[in-house]
């Protein structure tokens, strides 16, 4: 039993060590040449535009169900007109960043792990190195930059669409006027909330993409290994999103409020 625990500990320590090494290489790559511009632009499209549909759907339905659920509860206090305030605060501070990040973990994290994993098992990563290309610069840095840029943008879109979804429900199901809902949304938001809603996805985007890259580049064991890496990337990134979100929320509360 003890040896199993020891083995697990060793593997975990090795993974952390390799992840830190990747981050170190990433930092060095970020401040020196060459920089592969067209790969970065391509990744902005793959990660950003490619994730738009899923983020729009997630945001809309989350906002809608939030309005539906909270409408009933608020009714008990005669506070139905405040539904917009609740939807906006929840979406901007918490649900928008976290759900967008979870969607990205499922779509982008798994995609990156599968793509890089396939390249590892077919020797394409070694071929890159043999051709004088640093895989971190060519493959990891453009994806991380795209994650850093697109996660906040997608989150803002999800927030907006979520509030629209909540508005549709507020107007059609809860009989709250559109102008009342809109005023309630604006009343419920503070500048600090907006900062929190932007900072969180920035960090979460970084976490998702770096975990996907790390897991993908550590793939071994042929096509089976690629499948394993894809699953690991989604699981690890999803858990990391929730854990990082908790600690980040505590930190931002103490700094911003």
């Amino acid at each position, binding site marked *: 039993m003890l040896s199993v625990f020891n083995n697990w500990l060793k593997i975990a320590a090795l993974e952390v060590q390799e992840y830190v090494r990747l981050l170190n290489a990433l930092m060095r790559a970020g401040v020196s040449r*060459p920089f592969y511009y067209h790969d970065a632009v391509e990744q902005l499209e793959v990660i950003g535009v490619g994730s738009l549909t899923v983020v729009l759907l997630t945001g809309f339905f989350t906002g809608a169900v939030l309005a539906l659920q909270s409408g009933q509860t608020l009714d008990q206090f005669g506070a139905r007109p405040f539904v917009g305030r609740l939807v906006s605060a929840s979406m901007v501070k918490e649900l928008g960043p976290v759900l967008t990040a979870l969607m990205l973990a499922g779509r982008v994290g798994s995609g990156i792990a599968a793509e890089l994993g396939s390249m590892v098992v077919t*020797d*394409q990563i070694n*071929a890159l190195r043999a*051709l*004088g290309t640093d895989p971190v610069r*060519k493959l990891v840095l453009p994806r991380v930059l795209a994650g850093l840029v697109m996660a906040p943008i997608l989150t803002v879109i999800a927030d907006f669409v979520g509030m629209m979804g909540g508005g549709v429900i507020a107007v059609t199901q809860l009989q709250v006027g559109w102008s009342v809902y809109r005023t309630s949304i604006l009343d419920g938001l503070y500048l600090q909330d907006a900062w929190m809603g932007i900072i969180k996805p920035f960090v979460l985007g970084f976490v998702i993409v770096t975990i996907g890259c790390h897991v993908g580049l550590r793939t071994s064991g042929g096509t089976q290994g690629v499948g394993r890496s894809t699953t690991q990337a989604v699981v690890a990134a999803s858990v990391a999103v929730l854990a990082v979100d908790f600690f980040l929320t505590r930190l931002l509360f103490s700094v911003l409020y």
Partner: protein
Amino acid sequence: MASVIPDERAVTRDEALGPGSPVVVFDKVSLSFDEKVILKSVSFTLIKGHTKIILGGSGAGKSTILKLILGLWKPDGGVIWVNGERVDQMSELDLMKVRADLGMVFQEGALFDSLTVRENVGYKLYEETDQPLEEVHRRVEEVLGFIGLAEHIDKMPSELSGGQRRRVAIARAMAAKPQILLYDEPTTGLDPITATTVDDEIIKLRDLENATSIVVTHQLRDAFYMATHAASRNNGRITIQPASAKKCDEAEFIMLCDGLVVFEGNAEELRHADDKYLKTFLS
């Protein structure tokens, strides 16, 4: 000299760096992964313009030698010189400079499956040099013409046959005109006729482009074919014919067994070796 290689062998720094010197030197190189020993004190020298053919069974450590030369893996012990640079302790950044003079053909080709044949072959020139695009296009077309695949330039790797993929991999390795070409099982899994076309490309590169080659294989037919044939160009026409005795001597065989070099010599010496393992391998 055909013989079972003695354990002790010293290569001095002067020998490795001097003019007309060996381009690859392994000096007592060892490597193991956990309990599994891959290489035990492996030493050999490759002279410029010569060909080293590394034979051995599966898991004998043949491909490992190529990865060590490229600096993709680091040895546990021993010294590796490539083009006068000691690569066994070199950083990844410095290794990039050494790799500029190396071309590698991976097992199964390892072509970038999201890039076309043109982009694969010209990858190094497009991405890692400042050469004008026109020049790069010209070089890519020249190289693909040399290996007879010019008409496939805009295809994706998935549209090519196994043999064509290997030949594109050879074209990619030679596009930047490296001094040393490394081939990892270039003909494994190919039918004999296709394998011969790949062998011919390796011979042409060696004899017409003066590339020093290391070929890792367990295909004896291909190994002996490469060692005993030469390419020449007459009035622009390239022909492959049996090589002279001097040329045959420039192709040296190494046999690996259990992480050790158990034979080093030319094709003729290998054919007449008395060692029991060699006889079994050759039979």
